[in-house]
């Protein structure tokens, strides 16, 4: 059983009963609670000073059409029905439904030459989350788990890795303590955090002491120490219920105008939550925008999705920059692959891993860069192909993680965040 190493568990010097009373029933007792509130508030104040780097992954689930977003091919056979618009980068254009991002293009590094081999959603999603193709031997850690492992604070009240609106890839062999903490609906905040109907604090405390007594009975009956693991996790959950930092999950505290700037969508609300979480010291946040699997009616699909993507991502970048957080926060926008240049009979585009686009911003990314290119039809990489290991080495370098440092996996094979890739200097400020 994997243990959270910073939690020592009950001390053998303290009578069991007393430990348990503090562990569950006593955790809500007022003196401890107010002490915790103070400590947490101090934490929040000093957090800014020692925040370090963080990362936000905007995950475009389903595989966005690169030609209809960041790599338009207007007027060609495969270009489709969208016009292209100018951006803040001279000579570079986006498709017409990303006007606000075009206006922030000076912050972006757009990679137009991603090239991969996986064309199935599950496999490609795994590849782009972990940097490795799936294997039946080994569960690779996702990027968020690596960041939690390398940059996270194990004792933090908030989780180090939060995933908003979607099932992310987990922590693999790094262990569930580095796995994503899932938020299903950003407007709801953390699910099951408030007390249940007809339960007030006093009643909740009675429930916890009843539970503590049952735990104690079972411990006495069996003498098994591993029962403490259950108590420790419950204790942490109760701590989160009380933590003032948990407000970071509640976007309702933001002014109306701010909320509106992110767009009226769950994706936009997720981006806003991501910004609040970065401010509270969370290291990795993934926000999913689902629906890019446009085999049918690609153009209306992409138009609708851009209505969510454009305000959400551009408000996030603007907000981070305004708060002087952008230099320390890497924002990545990508999906599992691109889509075919050919338009099928259902006005759709199909899966296409051979050539597609990914976008980086902030965290030391060199802004205003178009890296690599595709040919006239968007079907082949024409210059500077970027592989997954190279992308992951670049991301790691930007976050201050050594891309070559290996962790030993349970099958005895050492694994690094990048599978022997090389960072792309052109995308990194000052490199």
């Amino acid at each position, binding site marked *: 059983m994997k243990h959270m190493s910073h939690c020592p568990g009950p001390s053998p010097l303290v009578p069991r009963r007393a430990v348990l009373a503090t562990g569950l029933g006593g955790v809500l007792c007022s003196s401890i609670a107010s002490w915790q509130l103070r400590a947490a508030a101090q934490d929040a104040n000093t957090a800014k000073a020692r925040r370090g780097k963080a990362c936000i992954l905007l995950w475009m689930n389903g595989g966005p059409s690169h030609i209809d977003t960041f790599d338009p091919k207007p007027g060609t056979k495969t270009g489709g029905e969208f016009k292209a618009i100018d951006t803040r980068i001279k000579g570079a254009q986006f498709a017409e439904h990303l006007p606000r991002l075009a206006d922030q293009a000076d912050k972006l590094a757009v990679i137009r030459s991603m090239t991969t081999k996986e064309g199935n959603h599950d496999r490609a999603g795994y590849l782009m989350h972990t940097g490795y193709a799936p294997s039946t031997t080994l569960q690779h850690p996702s990027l968020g788990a690596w960041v939690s492992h390398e940059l996270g604070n194990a004792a933090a009240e908030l989780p180090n890795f939060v995933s908003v609106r979607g099932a992310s890839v987990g922590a693999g062999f790094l262990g569930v303590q580095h796995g994503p903490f899932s938020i299903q609906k950003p407007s709801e905040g953390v*699910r099951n955090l408030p007390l249940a109907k007809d339960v007030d604090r006093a009643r909740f405390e009675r429930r916890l002491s009843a539970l503590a007594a049952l735990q104690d009975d079972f411990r006495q009956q069996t003498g098994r120490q591993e029962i403490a693991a259950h108590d420790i996790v419950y204790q942490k959950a109760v701590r989160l219920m009380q933590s003032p930092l948990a407000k970071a999950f509640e976007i309702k505290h933001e002014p109306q105008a701010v909320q509106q700037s992110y767009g009226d969508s769950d994706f936009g609300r997720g981006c806003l939550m991501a910004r609040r979480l970065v401010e509270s010291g969370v290291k990795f946040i993934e926000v999913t925008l689902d629906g890019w699997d446009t085999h049918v009616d690609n153009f209306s699909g992409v138009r609708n999705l851009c209505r969510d993507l454009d305000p959400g991502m551009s408000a996030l970048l603007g907000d981070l920059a305004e708060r002087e957080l952008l230099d320390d926060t890497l924002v990545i926008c990508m999906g599992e692959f691109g889509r075919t240049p050919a338009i099928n009979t259902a006005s759709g585009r199909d899966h296409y891993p051979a050539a597609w686009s990914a976008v980086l911003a902030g965290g030391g990314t060199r802004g205003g860069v178009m890296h690599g290119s595709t040919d006239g039809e968007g079907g082949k990489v024409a210059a500077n192909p970027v592989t997954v290991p190279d992308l992951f080495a670049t991301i790691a370098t930007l976050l201050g993680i050594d891309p070559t440092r290996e962790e030993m996996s349970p099958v005895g094979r050492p694994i690094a965040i990048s599978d022997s890739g090389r960072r792309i200097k052109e995308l990194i400020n000052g490199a």
Partner: protein
Amino acid sequence: MRFLVATALFLSAVAKPALADDKLPPDIAAAVASLNQHFQSEWSAKSLKPAGPVNDAGYLRRIYLDLTGTLPPPERIHKFLNSEDQNKRTEAVDSLLASSDYATRWANYWDAVLMGRVTESAILDRGGFKTWLHEQWASNSPWDKIVAELLTAEGWNTNRQPGNSNGHPPNQAERYAPAVNWFLKHWQSLPELSSSTSKTFLGVQLQCAQCHDHKTEKWTQEDYRQFTAFFVKTWPTYFDKALVVGTPRVEVTEHFFVPPITARNEKYLASYKDYVKSTPKLLSGEAVSTWGSRRQELARWVTAKDNLYFAKAFVNRLWAVLLGRGFVEPIDDFRPTNPAILPEALDLLAADFAEHDFDIHRLIRIVCASRPYQLAAQARSASEGSEHLAHDLWSSYPIKQLEVEVLLQVVLDATGAAETLNRLSNKNLELVRSAFARQFVTQISNDDSSETANVDETIPRALLMLNGPLFCGTSRVVSGLSLENTLSDAATDRERIQRLYELTLSRQPRQAESDRWVAIVSAENELVSTPGASSDIKFSGLAALVPSAQIAAAPPDADFSELLKHAKTGVDFKLLYSRMKNNADAGQYVRALREFAAEAPFRALMEQGAARTAKDQAFEDLHWALLNCTEFLTNH
């Protein structure tokens, strides 16, 4: 102290004859005896003192959870405890093996292992596959037959017709072969088929050889390529075109030739390319006849009685499920550098399994009658000088986490909520179950593996159990739930407490426990009542009657994904069902419906009824605490 140890030794010596193996057929009894003897001598050699025997109530709960994924009903507990029959444990195992719950539990288990809980692919008929699994376990199909069918099945993936489709394949009914869904899960990546075959059925990890030759292990990249070549003559063809709603009909066929890879089909058959030129060769090094079916040659070799890995892999997995840890761990990683603990015990069971035609019932009977399975879940005492041993060689029974499907089932058993939830979900409890399992593994525990016995608990899981509708809803005094029946049927608090213990912990409370709760439920507290639910959305369960305004008023050409955002009741989903135009819509629909089904019925429970007195609330609190405690949430 010395006196205590002596007493304990004396007790365990006396207890031994009480292990009920009297009614076992003589040859099963012989297998159990030699297994027990082996454990006994290993324990003695390592100076391990085994825990005492598990008591009757503990044994009954254990076999119910392990064999059927359910809890024993209180009436069954009474009958079992009152029975003086020496053979009652053996009989209980036999009757569970014959129950439909047994087939359900193992169909769930194998569905998760073979197909994954979160796998999504339009071409898979997951329901058809699970029904097939259920039939295999209900009829106690021998393991070699089951595996051979998975490896060689040919025919249609489904016996249904998707929406918007035209016509039927003429032979859909007679060529329906649900086992092909396993092939279809993997076929887009051919190496996955060979690596899953070796991992799941032989406990051997070949994947490392996929990319590089390993210095110390036996198999090379070339071996791997040749092993994969067994699947290269088999591929599916589609009957239905795009734009159908539901599972398109796909036929899996093994051909006499390798697929001609053309520019048109390259996208689908990309992973075949590397293997079309390889000659199939078994992992044992034998070449096979190139005339017949390659997959049948493969199946013959995999499931052969003299293929030691085949029996061992299954025995090891079953042992891990029933006794917490396999002889080999990880359970599917047999290799010379990862030796088994107690290899003779594993060999003994594997030899028996193969000798008796891979009879799964027999294997379970042997394990459930064995000494390690009949020990109590007690920690070794610290005074024995054997603390340096990392492994206790099963000298006490482990504390095992429940698989997610079992967890939900035991909550339903302990609270009597199945019927109410079935009503609230418009008789769709199965959907609620699968939606719950999926949400739980992806969002709550972040772990899709079904095989780990000790899953780490997470904070979202703790929050769900502390405040979520799963426990807070099912432990309310609501008409139809167990708690309400308990309060009205039993005459005294003591009887009520006993009933709640039986429902949740499958045992009777000890005197001190009973005394404590009698005092607690009699304490004077205020009745607690908070207005409304914390969320402003009124969940009305799947069975609500009135559609949301946006959906009722939507024009026929309204954007489907926009409409889906407004779906908040069961009737909304019903209306939207008829608006799906293609599989992209269907995919979004299924995701939204699952999200809804995993929560809404439980939330509806939480909003129904309420305790009317502070004392009723105290009973709710006790029931809630019983559901949250480790003794309930584990098998031990």
